[in-house]
């Protein structure tokens, strides 16, 4: 009897525990699917001018479906706040006058079956642009003041027209000083839209000023006097660039930075110290920089390489020698005639860092006749230098302008007088590539490339001046050598110093940042 009670009791407990609602799905109908055609992956429209007109063809596997639509848009590349989906329409056909500020957006279409409440989302990238967000920008000066020419390229890389002196036309004034270099910041912080946010910014550096301008309007966000928490006493900008989470400005050979992964308002901090003794230093105008890694500077005072970890902290990082180096990265008694970025290759575990390769032309301080072409393999805080002592008969021995082929052939271009030469960095062979016509004088050479569909290019740019006019010949390469005639030639008034192709998809990692 006792066993019977125990068994009954246990059985009831099990019965109770086994009671559960059957929530299984016995609907064997195929999964509903809504599909559309007529919605492109990307659209490019001009703010306050274009309309987005899209009438997609919608189909669904539910023959009884009653569909409802919702179009919305949200912005990309935001920091510090969550983007909000703005409703544009609740009709199948979208017909919307674009008024959002120029930047990247995402268009969202939600199609909902009212019968089943099943909804499916479709998206497109929307590049909202202005007349200033596409074209060839030319930084030029008259020896005293700087301006920009903008060559408009509505359908291809070949300019259809030019807006001469566009900076002064928009702002009513030119920029003091001779133009030096342009760079682009995608996430520079400003309040140009009324809210602190990432702003696409073209930074033009002259020898007397800096203009960080909103690329949508070409209006300056900050100039030298407002670019720092406290403007440096000496106004002598060298360059401004982006490198691994930070923006940098080098002024009078001194390093200033913004660590861009934390809150900031776009102002650069105090001068970085070289070391804990605040030893004086002066950085060369040449450096190795890219978006992949921290920059590698060269201190002309001590002939030593320095770096800066993400622009953070008051003291710079001393660079040490990697095993096998043929010359020390510290106190090597050299000056740099040129130093630039060549390529970057990621090294996986356990290093988790980029091997950033650059090349330098060194000149010995004690024996100026000694010139060395060196390869620099930079990984975190160490550099391995591999030297190639130049012979006086080498063309590059007497070079005055240099440019490396960013990520391309192992070749350096340089000028000797009015001749543009190349030197194969592996075989050391030197080839005359181009002779500048009589009457013209070289002002810069630079290699730039870009991969946007329909606007891709890979040019060696040769800038010259002739009287009051400039000419920029942009050559395609074939196996590292220039083609006989330039693909595009830009011409205008002034002395050209730099050229950059701008488009809505250019970002701060698109181009190399070095001279």
């Amino acid at each position: 009897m006792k066993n019977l009670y125990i068994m009954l009791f246990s059985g009831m407990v099990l019965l109770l525990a086994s009671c559960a609602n059957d929530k299984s799905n016995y609907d064997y109908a195929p999964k509903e699917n809504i599909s559309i055609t007529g919605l492109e992956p990307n659209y490019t429209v001009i703010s306050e001018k274009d309309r987005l007109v899209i009438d997609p063809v919608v189909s669904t596997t539910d023959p009884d479906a009653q569909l409802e639509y919702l179009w919305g848009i949200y912005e990309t590349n935001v920091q510090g706040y969550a983007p909000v989906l703005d409703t544009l329409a609740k009709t199948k056909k979208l017909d919307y006058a674009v008024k959002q500020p120029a930047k990247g957006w995402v268009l969202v279409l939600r199609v909902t079956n009212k019968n089943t409440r099943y909804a499916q989302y479709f998206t497109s990238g929307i590049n909202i642009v202005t007349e200033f967000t596409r074209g060839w920008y030319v930084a030029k000066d008259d020896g005293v003041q700087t301006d920009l020419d903008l060559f408009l390229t509505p359908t291809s890389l070949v300019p259809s027209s030019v807006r001469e002196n566009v900076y002064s036309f928009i702002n009513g004034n030119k920029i003091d000083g001779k133009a030096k270099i342009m760079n682009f910041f995608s996430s520079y912080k400003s309040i140009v839209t009324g809210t602190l946010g990432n702003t696409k910014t073209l930074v033009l550096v002259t020898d007397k000023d800096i203009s960080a301008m909103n690329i949508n309007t070409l209006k300056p966000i900050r100039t030298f006097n407002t670019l720092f928490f406290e403007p440096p006493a000496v106004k002598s900008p060298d360059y401004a660039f982006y490198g691994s989470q930070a923006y940098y400005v080098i002024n009078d050979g001194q390093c200033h930075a913004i660590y861009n992964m934390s809150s900031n308002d776009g102002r650069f901090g105090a001068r970085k110290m070289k070391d804990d003794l605040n030893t004086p230093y002066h950085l060369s105008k040449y450096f190795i920089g890219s978006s992949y890694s921290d920059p590698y500077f060269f201190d002309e005072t001590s002939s030593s390489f320095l770096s800066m970890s993400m622009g953070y902290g008051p003291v710079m990082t001393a660079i040490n020698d990697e095993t096998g180096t043929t010359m020390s990265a510290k106190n090597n008694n050299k000056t740099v005639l040129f130093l630039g970025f060549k390529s970057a290759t990621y090294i996986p575990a356990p290093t988790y860092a980029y091997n950033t390769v650059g090349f330098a032309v060194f000149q010995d301080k004690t024996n100026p006749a000694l010139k060395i072409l060196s390869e620099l393999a930079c990984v975190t805080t160490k550099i391995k230098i591999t030297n190639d002592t130049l012979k006086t008969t080498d063309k590059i021995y007497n070079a005055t302008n240099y440019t490396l082929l960013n990520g391309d052939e192992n070749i350096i271009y340089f000028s000797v007088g009015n001749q543009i030469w190349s030197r194969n960095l592996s075989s050391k062979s030197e080839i005359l590539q181009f002779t500048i016509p009589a009457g013209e004088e070289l002002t810069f050479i630079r290699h730039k490339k870009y991969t946007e569909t329909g606007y891709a290019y890979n040019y060696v740019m040769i800038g010259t001046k002739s009287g009051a006019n400039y000419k920029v010949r942009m050559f395609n390469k074939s196996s590292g050598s220039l083609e006989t005639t330039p693909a595009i030639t830009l011409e205008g008034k002034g002395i050209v110093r730099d050229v950059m192709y701008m488009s809505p998809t250019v970002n701060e990692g698109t181009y190399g940042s070095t001279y």
Partner: protein
Amino acid sequence: MKTLKYLVIVMAVFAIASCKKDQYYLYNDVARLQFGPDPARIYQTSYNLADTLKPYTFYYEDATVKEDTVFFDIYAIGGISKIDRTFTLAQEQLPNALNATSGTHYVPFTDPRVSKFYVIKANTVHTKVPVILLRDASLKTTTPKLKFKVVADANFQVGEINNLWRKVEFTDRLSQPAAWNASFTQYYFGKYSVVKHQFMINTTGDKWDQTFIEAVYADLSLLQYYIAVVKAALIDYNNANPGNPLKDENGELVILP
């Protein structure tokens, strides 16, 4: 066997009867009063004990300033009332410390200048408690402490024991602002000293008082700027005084981490 059956039934009844939700003490029996953090922080448990101690200094004020007011947040619990309810505060003596003297260092809690504000207004549960500090000459050389507490009266019983008191440490000398807290010490400017504080003021031309530090603390890039400026100035000072680096009032080397 019958016994076993009854036993099982009785145990089941007891087991069911014993299931009862624990009754937390909700302080809703009578009106009670206690201090608390700023109203914006009352639902953030990490701020439960915020503002228990407020340092204050007359150091930055013009010589004509003879008194200043420090405010604390106080809360009624147990619900609102349709009428205004006064409350009572009183000083509590701290053992082995320089206690503030009523009438000399602060306006007494019974003085109408302050006691008229010790009221929880009708239909509210919160008010700011003003404590008027007096700039006595002794503050040039001392830092008295004023600890005060909620006293039960006809309107309010005391609330939770940990929230019944507040403390002010005040002086007329340069002193450590509350914002120079453990985090500020560990990650940015290091251990507090009056010498370091004065050096920062001299270097930057800024006050480095509570308001200024709070503003700087809210902007990391600005904070980094000031760290760089002060650090460079300290290094330059030490370089200019070889063998005699900057030392604080305790003889320790002034260091910025």
